[in-house]
Protein backbone atom coordinates (compact mmCIF):
# COMPACT_ATOMS: atom_id res chain seq x y z
CA UNK A 1 0.00 0.00 0.00
CA UNK A 2 1.13 3.52 -0.74
CA UNK A 3 1.44 5.64 2.37
CA UNK A 4 -0.65 8.74 2.94
CA UNK A 5 2.43 10.86 2.35
CA UNK A 6 3.31 9.11 -0.91
CA UNK A 7 -0.26 9.42 -2.15
CA UNK A 8 -0.37 13.13 -1.36
CA UNK A 9 2.89 13.74 -3.17
CA UNK A 10 1.75 11.73 -6.19
CA UNK A 11 -1.59 13.57 -6.34
CA UNK A 12 0.29 16.88 -6.25
CA UNK A 13 2.27 15.75 -9.34
CA UNK A 14 -0.87 14.56 -11.14
CA UNK A 15 -2.14 18.17 -11.06
CA UNK A 16 0.68 19.17 -13.41
CA UNK A 17 -0.71 17.09 -16.28
CA UNK A 18 -3.98 16.72 -18.22
CA UNK A 19 -4.02 12.93 -17.63
CA UNK A 20 -3.03 11.05 -14.43
CA UNK A 21 -0.79 8.49 -16.18
CA UNK A 22 1.56 11.30 -17.22
CA UNK A 23 2.67 11.46 -13.59
CA UNK A 24 3.88 7.85 -13.74
CA UNK A 25 7.60 8.65 -13.72
CA UNK A 26 7.17 11.15 -10.92
CA UNK A 27 5.18 8.58 -8.94
CA UNK A 28 7.96 6.01 -9.34
CA UNK A 29 10.49 8.59 -8.19
CA UNK A 30 8.36 9.50 -5.18
CA UNK A 31 8.04 5.90 -4.06
CA UNK A 32 11.75 5.35 -4.58
CA UNK A 33 12.56 8.48 -2.56
CA UNK A 34 10.69 6.96 0.39
CA UNK A 35 11.70 3.31 0.03
CA UNK A 36 15.02 3.40 -1.87
CA UNK A 37 13.68 1.12 -4.61
CA UNK A 38 10.44 0.13 -6.36
CA UNK A 39 9.01 -3.31 -5.55
CA UNK A 40 6.42 -5.33 -7.52
CA UNK A 41 3.80 -4.33 -4.97
CA UNK A 42 4.63 -0.66 -5.41
CA UNK A 43 4.24 -1.05 -9.18
CA UNK A 44 0.74 -2.44 -8.66
CA UNK A 45 -0.20 0.33 -6.26
CA UNK A 46 1.03 3.05 -8.60
CA UNK A 47 -0.80 1.43 -11.51
CA UNK A 48 -4.02 1.42 -9.55
CA UNK A 49 -3.64 5.02 -8.42
CA UNK A 50 -2.94 6.29 -11.95
CA UNK A 51 -5.41 4.06 -13.79
CA UNK A 52 -2.72 2.16 -15.68
CA UNK A 53 -1.99 -1.55 -16.08
CA UNK A 54 0.80 -3.10 -13.99
CA UNK A 55 2.67 -3.95 -17.17
CA UNK A 56 2.55 -0.36 -18.40
CA UNK A 57 4.00 0.95 -15.16
CA UNK A 58 6.65 -1.77 -15.08
CA UNK A 59 7.53 -1.02 -18.71
CA UNK A 60 8.18 2.57 -17.71
CA UNK A 61 10.00 1.66 -14.50
CA UNK A 62 12.42 -0.68 -16.27
CA UNK A 63 13.15 1.82 -19.05
CA UNK A 64 14.61 4.53 -16.86
CA UNK A 65 18.05 3.93 -15.42
CA UNK A 66 17.46 5.93 -12.24
CA UNK A 67 14.51 3.80 -11.14
CA UNK A 68 15.68 0.81 -9.16
CA UNK A 69 13.63 -2.35 -9.46
CA UNK A 70 15.92 -4.22 -7.08
CA UNK A 71 16.85 -3.30 -3.51
CA UNK A 72 19.87 -1.01 -3.18
CA UNK A 73 22.06 -0.16 -0.18
CA UNK A 74 21.51 2.74 2.21
CA UNK A 75 23.74 4.92 0.03
CA UNK A 76 24.10 4.75 -3.74
CA UNK A 77 27.47 5.67 -5.24
CA UNK A 78 27.41 6.65 -8.90
CA UNK A 79 30.88 6.81 -10.43
CA UNK A 80 30.97 8.64 -13.74
CA UNK A 81 32.54 6.58 -16.53
CA UNK A 82 31.71 9.15 -19.21
CA UNK A 83 34.31 10.26 -21.71
CA UNK A 84 35.65 13.32 -19.85
CA UNK A 85 35.97 11.31 -16.64
CA UNK A 86 37.69 8.53 -18.55
CA UNK A 87 40.28 10.96 -19.90
CA UNK A 88 40.80 12.35 -16.40
CA UNK A 89 41.27 8.89 -14.89
CA UNK A 90 38.01 7.62 -13.42
CA UNK A 91 39.42 4.09 -13.57
CA UNK A 92 41.79 4.65 -10.67
CA UNK A 93 38.91 6.05 -8.62
CA UNK A 94 36.83 3.00 -9.43
CA UNK A 95 39.71 0.65 -8.56
CA UNK A 96 40.16 2.41 -5.23
CA UNK A 97 36.48 2.16 -4.28
CA UNK A 98 36.32 -1.43 -5.48
CA UNK A 99 39.28 -2.37 -3.35
CA UNK A 100 38.14 -0.56 -0.20
CA UNK A 101 34.49 -1.62 -0.32
CA UNK A 102 35.06 -5.00 -1.87
CA UNK A 103 32.30 -4.54 -4.45
CA UNK A 104 32.21 -3.85 -8.18
CA UNK A 105 29.65 -2.08 -10.33
CA UNK A 106 26.14 -3.43 -9.77
CA UNK A 107 26.90 -4.77 -6.29
CA UNK A 108 25.95 -3.91 -2.71
CA UNK A 109 28.18 -4.27 0.35
CA UNK A 110 27.33 -7.10 2.75
CA UNK A 111 26.39 -4.58 5.48
CA UNK A 112 24.02 -2.92 2.97
CA UNK A 113 25.78 0.42 3.43
CA UNK A 114 26.69 1.05 -0.22
CA UNK A 115 25.55 0.13 -3.71
CA UNK A 116 28.02 0.95 -6.49
CA UNK A 117 26.84 1.86 -9.98
CA UNK A 118 28.40 3.39 -13.09
CA UNK A 119 26.86 6.50 -14.59
CA UNK A 120 27.58 8.10 -17.94
CA UNK A 121 28.21 11.79 -17.45
CA UNK A 122 27.03 13.95 -14.57
CA UNK A 123 27.54 17.29 -16.31
CA UNK A 124 30.57 18.07 -14.16
CA UNK A 125 32.98 17.49 -17.07
CA UNK A 126 35.15 20.56 -16.41
CA UNK A 127 35.82 19.20 -12.91
CA UNK A 128 36.29 15.53 -13.78
CA UNK A 129 36.61 12.87 -12.45
CA UNK A 130 33.22 13.03 -10.75
CA UNK A 131 30.79 10.95 -8.78
CA UNK A 132 27.53 11.27 -6.93
CA UNK A 133 26.64 9.78 -3.57
CA UNK A 134 22.87 9.87 -3.11
CA UNK A 135 22.04 13.45 -4.15
CA UNK A 136 25.48 14.99 -3.67
CA UNK A 137 27.98 15.73 -6.42
CA UNK A 138 31.74 15.36 -5.88
CA UNK A 139 34.34 16.57 -8.35
CA UNK A 140 38.06 16.58 -9.09
CA UNK A 141 38.31 13.28 -7.28
CA UNK A 142 41.56 11.75 -6.19
CA UNK A 143 42.11 8.34 -4.60
CA UNK A 144 42.53 10.00 -1.19
CA UNK A 145 39.56 12.31 -1.55
CA UNK A 146 37.17 9.57 -2.52
CA UNK A 147 37.67 7.57 0.68
CA UNK A 148 37.23 10.69 2.83
CA UNK A 149 33.96 11.38 1.09
CA UNK A 150 32.65 7.86 1.55
CA UNK A 151 33.46 7.92 5.27
CA UNK A 152 30.79 10.63 5.64
CA UNK A 153 28.03 8.21 4.64
CA UNK A 154 26.83 5.87 7.33
Amino acid at each position, binding site marked *: MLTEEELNEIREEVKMYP*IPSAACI*SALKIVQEHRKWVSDDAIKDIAEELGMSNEEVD*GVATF*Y*SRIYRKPVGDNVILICDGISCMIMGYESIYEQVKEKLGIGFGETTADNRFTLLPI*SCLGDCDHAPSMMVNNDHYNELTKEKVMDILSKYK
Partner: protein
Amino acid sequence: MEKPLTEYITPGSPPLSLNEYRKAGGYKGVDKALKTMAPAEVTEMIKTSNLMGRGGAGFLTGLKWSFVPMDEKDKPKYLICNADEMEPGTFKDRYLLEGNPHQLIAGMIVAAYAIQAETAYIFLRWAYKKAEKTIQKAISEAYKAGYLGKNILNTGFNLDIHLHTSAGRYICGEESALTNSLEGKRAIPRAKPPFPAISGLFGRPTVVNNVETLSWIAHITNKGTEWFKNLSISGTGGTKLYGVSGRVKNPGLWELPLGTTIREILDVHAGGMAEGYKFRGLLPGGASTDFLIEDHLDVQMDFKTVAAVGSRMGTGTMIILDDKTCPVAFVRNLENFFALESCGWCTPCREGLPWIEKILGAIEEGRGKMEYLDTLKFQTKYLAPGHTFCAHAPGAAEPLQSGLKYFYDDFVRHINEHKCPWR
Protein backbone atom coordinates in the same frame (compact mmCIF):
# COMPACT_ATOMS: atom_id res chain seq x y z
CA MET B 1 32.76 42.36 -25.11
CA GLU B 2 29.11 41.83 -24.16
CA LYS B 3 28.13 38.64 -22.37
CA PRO B 4 24.37 38.89 -22.07
CA LEU B 5 23.72 35.28 -21.00
CA THR B 6 26.26 35.15 -18.20
CA GLU B 7 26.42 38.82 -17.18
CA TYR B 8 24.54 38.22 -13.93
CA ILE B 9 26.00 34.82 -13.10
CA THR B 10 28.53 34.64 -10.28
CA PRO B 11 29.64 31.04 -9.74
CA GLY B 12 29.38 30.14 -6.08
CA SER B 13 26.74 32.80 -5.34
CA PRO B 14 23.00 32.25 -5.48
CA PRO B 15 21.26 33.49 -8.63
CA LEU B 16 19.53 36.88 -8.74
CA SER B 17 16.02 36.95 -7.31
CA LEU B 18 13.17 38.08 -9.53
CA ASN B 19 13.32 41.60 -8.10
CA GLU B 20 17.06 41.85 -8.57
CA TYR B 21 16.89 40.53 -12.12
CA ARG B 22 13.99 42.85 -12.91
CA LYS B 23 15.93 45.84 -11.57
CA ALA B 24 18.80 44.80 -13.84
CA GLY B 25 16.36 45.05 -16.75
CA GLY B 26 15.99 41.30 -17.20
CA TYR B 27 12.19 41.27 -17.50
CA LYS B 28 11.96 44.29 -19.85
CA GLY B 29 11.76 41.99 -22.86
CA VAL B 30 8.72 40.28 -21.32
CA ASP B 31 6.89 43.55 -20.68
CA LYS B 32 7.68 44.78 -24.15
CA ALA B 33 6.55 41.61 -25.92
CA LEU B 34 3.35 41.04 -23.98
CA LYS B 35 2.26 44.68 -23.86
CA THR B 36 3.32 46.07 -27.21
CA MET B 37 3.70 43.17 -29.65
CA ALA B 38 1.29 40.70 -31.23
CA PRO B 39 2.34 37.02 -30.93
CA ALA B 40 3.09 36.83 -34.67
CA GLU B 41 5.32 39.89 -34.36
CA VAL B 42 7.40 38.16 -31.70
CA THR B 43 7.83 35.08 -33.90
CA GLU B 44 8.74 37.30 -36.84
CA MET B 45 11.31 39.12 -34.72
CA ILE B 46 12.97 35.88 -33.58
CA LYS B 47 13.00 34.75 -37.21
CA THR B 48 14.69 37.99 -38.28
CA SER B 49 17.24 37.66 -35.48
CA ASN B 50 18.39 34.38 -37.06
CA LEU B 51 18.61 32.73 -33.61
CA MET B 52 19.72 29.14 -34.21
CA GLY B 53 18.78 26.45 -31.68
CA ARG B 54 21.50 25.78 -29.13
CA GLY B 55 20.41 22.18 -28.39
CA GLY B 56 22.80 20.81 -30.99
CA ALA B 57 21.06 20.85 -34.35
CA GLY B 58 21.08 24.61 -34.94
CA PHE B 59 17.52 24.76 -36.26
CA LEU B 60 16.16 28.29 -36.74
CA THR B 61 14.03 29.08 -33.69
CA GLY B 62 11.68 31.58 -35.32
CA LEU B 63 11.08 29.22 -38.20
CA LYS B 64 10.20 26.40 -35.80
CA TRP B 65 7.69 28.62 -34.02
CA SER B 66 6.16 29.72 -37.32
CA PHE B 67 4.98 26.13 -37.98
CA VAL B 68 2.65 26.28 -34.96
CA PRO B 69 -1.00 26.74 -35.98
CA MET B 70 -2.38 29.95 -34.50
CA ASP B 71 -6.18 29.58 -34.51
CA GLU B 72 -8.12 29.70 -31.24
CA LYS B 73 -9.24 26.10 -31.92
CA ASP B 74 -5.62 24.93 -31.94
CA LYS B 75 -5.37 25.38 -28.16
CA PRO B 76 -4.20 23.88 -25.86
CA LYS B 77 -0.60 24.17 -27.04
CA TYR B 78 2.61 23.48 -25.18
CA LEU B 79 6.08 24.88 -24.80
CA ILE B 80 8.81 22.56 -23.52
CA CYS B 81 12.22 23.63 -22.31
CA ASN B 82 14.72 20.87 -22.98
CA ALA B 83 17.02 20.88 -19.94
CA ASP B 84 17.95 17.21 -20.21
CA GLU B 85 21.59 17.87 -21.13
CA MET B 86 22.90 14.32 -21.02
CA GLU B 87 25.31 14.61 -23.95
CA PRO B 88 28.65 13.42 -22.53
CA GLY B 89 31.07 16.30 -22.18
CA THR B 90 28.29 18.89 -22.04
CA PHE B 91 27.69 21.13 -19.04
CA LYS B 92 26.52 24.46 -20.42
CA ASP B 93 22.79 24.40 -19.60
CA ARG B 94 23.56 23.54 -15.99
CA TYR B 95 25.50 26.81 -15.72
CA LEU B 96 22.53 28.84 -16.99
CA LEU B 97 19.98 26.97 -14.86
CA GLU B 98 21.93 27.26 -11.65
CA GLY B 99 23.19 30.74 -12.39
CA ASN B 100 20.21 32.63 -13.76
CA PRO B 101 16.88 30.76 -13.84
CA HIS B 102 14.92 34.02 -14.27
CA GLN B 103 16.60 34.61 -17.60
CA LEU B 104 15.16 31.28 -18.75
CA ILE B 105 11.72 31.95 -17.30
CA ALA B 106 11.57 35.39 -18.92
CA GLY B 107 12.46 33.77 -22.24
CA MET B 108 9.88 31.03 -21.76
CA ILE B 109 7.11 33.55 -21.06
CA VAL B 110 7.83 35.36 -24.32
CA ALA B 111 8.19 32.12 -26.28
CA ALA B 112 4.92 30.76 -24.89
CA TYR B 113 3.22 34.06 -25.73
CA ALA B 114 4.51 33.91 -29.30
CA ILE B 115 3.03 30.46 -29.92
CA GLN B 116 0.09 31.09 -27.53
CA ALA B 117 0.85 28.15 -25.27
CA GLU B 118 -0.69 28.34 -21.82
CA THR B 119 1.25 25.47 -20.29
CA ALA B 120 5.00 24.99 -20.34
CA TYR B 121 7.25 22.30 -18.90
CA ILE B 122 10.91 22.38 -18.02
CA PHE B 123 12.27 18.86 -18.54
CA LEU B 124 15.27 18.69 -16.22
CA ARG B 125 18.03 16.14 -16.13
CA TRP B 126 17.77 14.04 -12.95
CA ALA B 127 21.33 14.77 -11.78
CA TYR B 128 20.89 18.53 -11.62
CA LYS B 129 19.80 18.70 -7.98
CA LYS B 130 20.95 22.26 -7.45
CA ALA B 131 19.25 23.52 -10.60
CA GLU B 132 16.05 21.80 -9.45
CA LYS B 133 16.01 24.07 -6.39
CA THR B 134 16.95 27.29 -8.20
CA ILE B 135 14.29 26.71 -10.87
CA GLN B 136 11.59 25.83 -8.35
CA LYS B 137 12.32 28.99 -6.38
CA ALA B 138 12.37 31.16 -9.48
CA ILE B 139 9.06 29.76 -10.69
CA SER B 140 7.36 30.51 -7.39
CA GLU B 141 8.77 34.05 -7.37
CA ALA B 142 7.42 34.56 -10.88
CA TYR B 143 3.93 33.43 -9.80
CA LYS B 144 4.01 35.84 -6.85
CA ALA B 145 5.10 38.74 -9.04
CA GLY B 146 2.32 38.07 -11.56
CA TYR B 147 4.66 36.96 -14.37
CA LEU B 148 3.09 33.50 -14.30
CA GLY B 149 -0.49 32.39 -13.71
CA LYS B 150 -3.64 34.05 -14.98
CA ASN B 151 -3.81 37.38 -16.82
CA ILE B 152 -0.08 38.08 -16.81
CA LEU B 153 0.69 41.84 -16.57
CA ASN B 154 -3.05 42.47 -17.20
CA THR B 155 -2.65 41.40 -20.81
CA GLY B 156 -5.11 38.52 -20.66
CA PHE B 157 -2.29 36.02 -21.36
CA ASN B 158 -2.14 32.99 -19.03
CA LEU B 159 0.83 30.72 -18.47
CA ASP B 160 1.75 27.94 -16.07
CA ILE B 161 5.30 26.59 -15.95
CA HIS B 162 5.85 23.14 -14.42
CA LEU B 163 9.15 21.52 -13.56
CA HIS B 164 9.55 17.84 -14.46
CA THR B 165 12.66 16.08 -13.18
CA SER B 166 13.69 13.13 -15.25
CA ALA B 167 14.65 9.58 -14.26
CA GLY B 168 17.69 9.17 -16.50
CA ARG B 169 18.31 7.97 -20.10
CA TYR B 170 20.10 10.09 -22.67
CA ILE B 171 17.39 9.47 -25.26
CA CYS B 172 15.02 11.67 -23.23
CA GLY B 173 16.87 14.64 -24.75
CA GLU B 174 15.59 13.78 -28.23
CA GLU B 175 12.54 15.97 -28.50
CA SER B 176 9.92 13.39 -29.43
CA ALA B 177 11.26 10.89 -26.87
CA LEU B 178 11.14 13.71 -24.33
CA THR B 179 7.52 14.28 -25.25
CA ASN B 180 6.70 10.62 -24.59
CA SER B 181 8.55 10.81 -21.31
CA LEU B 182 6.52 13.85 -20.24
CA GLU B 183 3.40 11.80 -20.99
CA GLY B 184 4.64 9.23 -18.47
CA LYS B 185 5.74 6.69 -21.08
CA ARG B 186 8.97 5.02 -22.12
CA ALA B 187 11.15 7.59 -23.86
CA ILE B 188 10.95 6.17 -27.38
CA PRO B 189 11.29 8.70 -30.22
CA ARG B 190 8.23 9.17 -32.40
CA ALA B 191 8.10 8.76 -36.15
CA LYS B 192 8.07 12.13 -37.90
CA PRO B 193 5.95 13.54 -39.50
CA PRO B 194 3.79 14.69 -37.84
CA PHE B 195 6.23 17.19 -36.40
CA PRO B 196 5.75 18.41 -32.82
CA ALA B 197 4.57 21.84 -34.02
CA ILE B 198 1.45 20.07 -35.32
CA SER B 199 1.16 17.09 -32.98
CA GLY B 200 3.44 16.94 -29.97
CA LEU B 201 2.74 16.65 -26.26
CA PHE B 202 -0.65 14.97 -25.64
CA GLY B 203 -1.17 15.22 -29.41
CA ARG B 204 -1.23 19.02 -29.30
CA PRO B 205 0.93 21.60 -31.09
CA THR B 206 4.22 21.79 -29.19
CA VAL B 207 7.53 23.60 -29.39
CA VAL B 208 10.65 22.12 -27.82
CA ASN B 209 13.63 24.42 -27.31
CA ASN B 210 16.92 24.15 -25.50
CA VAL B 211 17.71 26.10 -22.30
CA GLU B 212 20.36 28.27 -23.96
CA THR B 213 18.01 29.04 -26.88
CA LEU B 214 15.16 30.10 -24.61
CA SER B 215 17.48 32.14 -22.40
CA TRP B 216 17.99 34.48 -25.39
CA ILE B 217 14.37 35.27 -26.17
CA ALA B 218 13.62 38.12 -23.75
CA HIS B 219 17.02 39.70 -24.51
CA ILE B 220 16.12 39.79 -28.19
CA THR B 221 12.65 41.28 -27.69
CA ASN B 222 14.22 43.87 -25.40
CA LYS B 223 17.30 44.85 -27.37
CA GLY B 224 16.42 44.00 -30.94
CA THR B 225 17.65 41.85 -33.78
CA GLU B 226 20.52 44.09 -34.90
CA TRP B 227 22.00 44.07 -31.42
CA PHE B 228 21.75 40.26 -31.40
CA LYS B 229 23.35 39.83 -34.81
CA ASN B 230 26.23 42.11 -33.91
CA LEU B 231 27.15 39.98 -30.91
CA SER B 232 28.59 37.28 -33.16
CA ILE B 233 31.78 37.36 -35.20
CA SER B 234 30.40 35.18 -37.95
CA GLY B 235 27.17 37.11 -38.49
CA THR B 236 25.00 34.17 -37.36
CA GLY B 237 23.88 36.07 -34.28
CA GLY B 238 24.52 35.93 -30.56
CA THR B 239 27.20 34.65 -28.30
CA LYS B 240 27.71 31.00 -27.43
CA LEU B 241 28.61 29.16 -24.28
CA TYR B 242 31.73 27.24 -25.25
CA GLY B 243 33.17 24.62 -22.95
CA VAL B 244 36.32 22.53 -22.82
CA SER B 245 36.99 19.34 -20.88
CA GLY B 246 39.93 16.96 -20.92
CA ARG B 247 43.66 17.50 -20.32
CA VAL B 248 43.84 21.28 -20.72
CA LYS B 249 45.27 23.71 -18.15
CA ASN B 250 41.97 25.35 -17.39
CA PRO B 251 38.87 23.30 -18.25
CA GLY B 252 35.69 25.36 -18.10
CA LEU B 253 32.98 27.33 -19.81
CA TRP B 254 33.06 30.77 -21.44
CA GLU B 255 30.53 32.97 -23.16
CA LEU B 256 32.15 34.22 -26.37
CA PRO B 257 30.97 35.66 -29.68
CA LEU B 258 29.58 32.97 -31.96
CA GLY B 259 32.32 32.28 -34.48
CA THR B 260 35.29 32.42 -32.10
CA THR B 261 37.99 30.08 -33.42
CA ILE B 262 38.69 26.72 -31.83
CA ARG B 263 42.29 27.83 -31.32
CA GLU B 264 41.29 30.87 -29.31
CA ILE B 265 38.96 28.83 -27.11
CA LEU B 266 41.62 26.18 -26.52
CA ASP B 267 44.71 28.33 -26.14
CA VAL B 268 43.45 31.57 -24.64
CA HIS B 269 40.48 30.47 -22.55
CA ALA B 270 41.32 26.87 -21.68
CA GLY B 271 44.99 27.85 -21.30
CA GLY B 272 46.32 25.27 -23.78
CA MET B 273 47.21 21.66 -23.05
CA ALA B 274 48.09 20.64 -19.49
CA GLU B 275 51.77 20.11 -18.64
CA GLY B 276 53.04 16.91 -20.22
CA TYR B 277 50.13 16.37 -22.61
CA LYS B 278 49.98 16.94 -26.36
CA PHE B 279 46.89 17.70 -28.41
CA ARG B 280 45.72 15.02 -30.82
CA GLY B 281 42.13 15.84 -31.63
CA LEU B 282 38.79 17.00 -30.29
CA LEU B 283 35.07 16.48 -30.48
CA PRO B 284 33.74 20.01 -31.02
CA GLY B 285 30.30 19.67 -29.48
CA GLY B 286 29.74 16.61 -27.37
CA ALA B 287 30.01 12.85 -27.83
CA SER B 288 27.91 12.71 -30.99
CA THR B 289 30.10 14.95 -33.15
CA ASP B 290 32.92 14.02 -35.56
CA PHE B 291 36.55 14.41 -34.50
CA LEU B 292 38.54 17.41 -35.66
CA ILE B 293 42.35 17.54 -35.61
CA GLU B 294 45.24 20.04 -35.55
CA ASP B 295 44.46 21.15 -39.15
CA HIS B 296 41.09 22.46 -38.01
CA LEU B 297 42.13 24.64 -35.10
CA ASP B 298 41.58 27.87 -37.00
CA VAL B 299 38.01 26.95 -37.85
CA GLN B 300 35.37 29.24 -36.35
CA MET B 301 33.03 27.54 -33.88
CA ASP B 302 29.73 28.15 -35.66
CA PHE B 303 27.17 25.82 -37.19
CA LYS B 304 28.16 26.36 -40.83
CA THR B 305 31.91 26.58 -40.40
CA VAL B 306 32.26 23.41 -38.35
CA ALA B 307 29.93 21.57 -40.75
CA ALA B 308 32.14 22.69 -43.64
CA VAL B 309 35.04 20.65 -42.23
CA GLY B 310 32.94 17.54 -41.72
CA SER B 311 31.76 17.79 -38.13
CA ARG B 312 29.07 19.61 -36.15
CA MET B 313 29.26 22.39 -33.59
CA GLY B 314 26.70 20.39 -31.57
CA THR B 315 26.47 21.76 -28.07
CA GLY B 316 29.72 23.75 -28.40
CA THR B 317 31.34 21.96 -25.48
CA MET B 318 34.54 20.33 -26.69
CA ILE B 319 36.19 17.15 -25.46
CA ILE B 320 39.94 17.02 -26.01
CA LEU B 321 41.84 13.88 -26.98
CA ASP B 322 45.43 14.02 -25.71
CA ASP B 323 48.46 11.88 -26.59
CA LYS B 324 48.26 9.84 -23.37
CA THR B 325 44.69 8.72 -23.97
CA CYS B 326 44.19 5.79 -26.34
CA PRO B 327 41.97 6.83 -29.27
CA VAL B 328 40.51 3.33 -29.52
CA ALA B 329 39.60 3.38 -25.81
CA PHE B 330 38.17 6.88 -26.30
CA VAL B 331 35.88 5.76 -29.13
CA ARG B 332 35.01 2.54 -27.32
CA ASN B 333 33.90 4.53 -24.28
CA LEU B 334 31.59 6.60 -26.47
CA GLU B 335 30.14 3.61 -28.33
CA ASN B 336 29.55 1.81 -25.05
CA PHE B 337 27.57 4.85 -23.97
CA PHE B 338 25.54 4.98 -27.18
CA ALA B 339 24.88 1.23 -27.06
CA LEU B 340 23.61 1.44 -23.47
CA GLU B 341 21.47 4.47 -24.20
CA SER B 342 19.83 3.22 -27.41
CA CYS B 343 16.09 3.04 -26.86
CA GLY B 344 16.00 -0.21 -28.83
CA TRP B 345 13.48 0.68 -31.51
CA CYS B 346 15.61 0.47 -34.67
CA THR B 347 17.74 -2.53 -35.62
CA PRO B 348 20.95 -0.77 -36.73
CA CYS B 349 21.03 1.10 -33.44
CA ARG B 350 19.88 -1.66 -31.07
CA GLU B 351 21.97 -4.44 -32.64
CA GLY B 352 24.71 -2.48 -34.37
CA LEU B 353 25.95 -0.45 -31.43
CA PRO B 354 26.64 -3.37 -29.05
CA TRP B 355 28.36 -5.15 -31.95
CA ILE B 356 30.55 -2.09 -32.54
CA GLU B 357 31.36 -1.87 -28.86
CA LYS B 358 32.41 -5.53 -28.78
CA ILE B 359 34.65 -5.12 -31.81
CA LEU B 360 36.26 -2.02 -30.36
CA GLY B 361 36.76 -3.89 -27.10
CA ALA B 362 38.47 -6.74 -28.94
CA ILE B 363 40.75 -4.32 -30.79
CA GLU B 364 41.61 -2.41 -27.64
CA GLU B 365 42.43 -5.59 -25.79
CA GLY B 366 44.68 -6.86 -28.57
CA ARG B 367 42.29 -9.47 -29.99
CA GLY B 368 41.50 -7.50 -33.15
CA LYS B 369 41.85 -8.51 -36.79
CA MET B 370 42.21 -6.26 -39.83
CA GLU B 371 38.82 -7.30 -41.20
CA TYR B 372 37.20 -5.88 -38.05
CA LEU B 373 37.97 -2.43 -39.38
CA ASP B 374 35.82 -3.15 -42.43
CA THR B 375 33.00 -4.34 -40.18
CA LEU B 376 33.19 -1.05 -38.28
CA LYS B 377 33.00 0.93 -41.52
CA PHE B 378 30.09 -1.17 -42.71
CA GLN B 379 28.29 -0.51 -39.43
CA THR B 380 28.66 3.26 -39.70
CA LYS B 381 26.89 3.06 -43.07
CA TYR B 382 23.76 1.60 -41.43
CA LEU B 383 23.84 4.05 -38.55
CA ALA B 384 23.81 6.95 -41.02
CA PRO B 385 20.80 9.29 -41.32
CA GLY B 386 17.79 7.73 -43.00
CA HIS B 387 18.10 4.23 -41.51
CA THR B 388 16.73 4.99 -38.06
CA PHE B 389 13.88 6.87 -36.40
CA CYS B 390 16.05 9.38 -34.58
CA ALA B 391 19.45 11.01 -34.66
CA HIS B 392 20.88 8.86 -31.86
CA ALA B 393 22.36 6.34 -34.29
CA PRO B 394 23.82 8.90 -36.72
CA GLY B 395 25.26 10.70 -33.69
CA ALA B 396 26.89 7.47 -32.53
CA ALA B 397 28.42 6.98 -35.98
CA GLU B 398 30.13 10.37 -35.99
CA PRO B 399 33.03 9.83 -33.56
CA LEU B 400 33.50 6.29 -34.92
CA GLN B 401 33.74 7.14 -38.61
CA SER B 402 35.99 10.16 -38.00
CA GLY B 403 38.03 8.26 -35.41
CA LEU B 404 38.74 5.59 -38.03
CA LYS B 405 39.68 8.30 -40.49
CA TYR B 406 42.04 10.33 -38.32
CA PHE B 407 43.45 7.66 -36.02
CA TYR B 408 43.51 4.73 -38.43
CA ASP B 409 47.16 3.99 -37.71
CA ASP B 410 46.41 3.68 -34.01
CA PHE B 411 43.68 1.11 -34.71
CA VAL B 412 46.10 -0.84 -36.90
CA ARG B 413 48.84 -0.70 -34.26
CA HIS B 414 46.51 -2.37 -31.74
CA ILE B 415 45.84 -5.15 -34.22
CA ASN B 416 49.47 -5.66 -35.25
CA GLU B 417 50.93 -5.47 -31.75
CA HIS B 418 48.12 -7.57 -30.20
CA LYS B 419 47.86 -5.10 -27.35
CA CYS B 420 46.99 -1.53 -26.50
CA PRO B 421 50.14 0.57 -26.97
CA TRP B 422 48.83 2.91 -24.26
CA ARG B 423 48.63 0.29 -21.53
